[in-house]
């Protein structure tokens, strides 16, 4: 059984590599039971989205409406 701490590491690594089948299964099981880790995962996904958004803002052309 994964601990929350271990789950956070897997969720972070999940942004960098494809998790193995066993890892995915363990994580899914853990997330089904733990809302804290479900929130953690959404926050990790949001960080990725925010980074993409940040890049987009920096690269955006000035003539486009801001935001």
């Amino acid at each position, binding site marked *: 059984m994964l*601990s*929350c*701490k*271990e789950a*956070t*590491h897997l969720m*972070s*690594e999940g*942004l*960098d*590599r494809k998790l193995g089948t066993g890892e995915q299964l363990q994580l899914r099981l853990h997330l089904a039971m*733990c*809302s*804290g*880790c479900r*929130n*953690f995962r*959404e*926050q*990790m996904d*949001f*960080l*990725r*989205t*925010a*980074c993409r*958004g*940040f*890049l987009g*803002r*920096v*690269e*955006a*052309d*000035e*003539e*486009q409406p*801001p*935001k």
Partner: protein
Amino acid sequence: MPDTALIDADFVTAIRRDLLKFAQLQLRDAALAEDAVQEALAAAFSGARQFAGRAALKTWVFSILRHKIVDLIRQQSRTTNISALGDDEAGLDEAFDTLFKQNAHWRPEARPGDWGNPEEALRESRFWEVFEICLNHLPENTARVFMMREFLEFETAEVCSELAISVSNCNVILHRARNGLRRCLETSWFAPEEKPC
């Protein structure tokens, strides 16, 4: 020379400001960032390429700047140990550990909360200020690895090999960065709501 009609003082000022912000975040050295931006602009404007418009030109300058930043980081990684655990890093790790009970499950008060629809924040310019502040709060080496992954869009394996650190080290550093950023955004932007479960 690209279309001179595309280039006027306002455009160059705006582009410089954006590029400088980007370079400064990653390099954390004003002089180095200034040089990198200057070189990127010079390289972009001296080429014979034609651009469909300012957006295309800006994308081009930006890609040149990215390469320059990568080169600088590569050089720095030869003289600094990116994976060395400084006081800042150790502090972040300790702070992370305090979120958990003895059995490595969340302490009730430290359990990650529901951020609702965080995407809405992306439309607010105040959020981006906070985001930048949080990035700047990350320890230097931690931030470097994170930004290489997320802003220079390297695969993790490439980040590790470029910076000569092991994959597991890379994973530890990225996890530290993400959690640090998450915690900073949580306290500075997403007002702590009631904790579920």
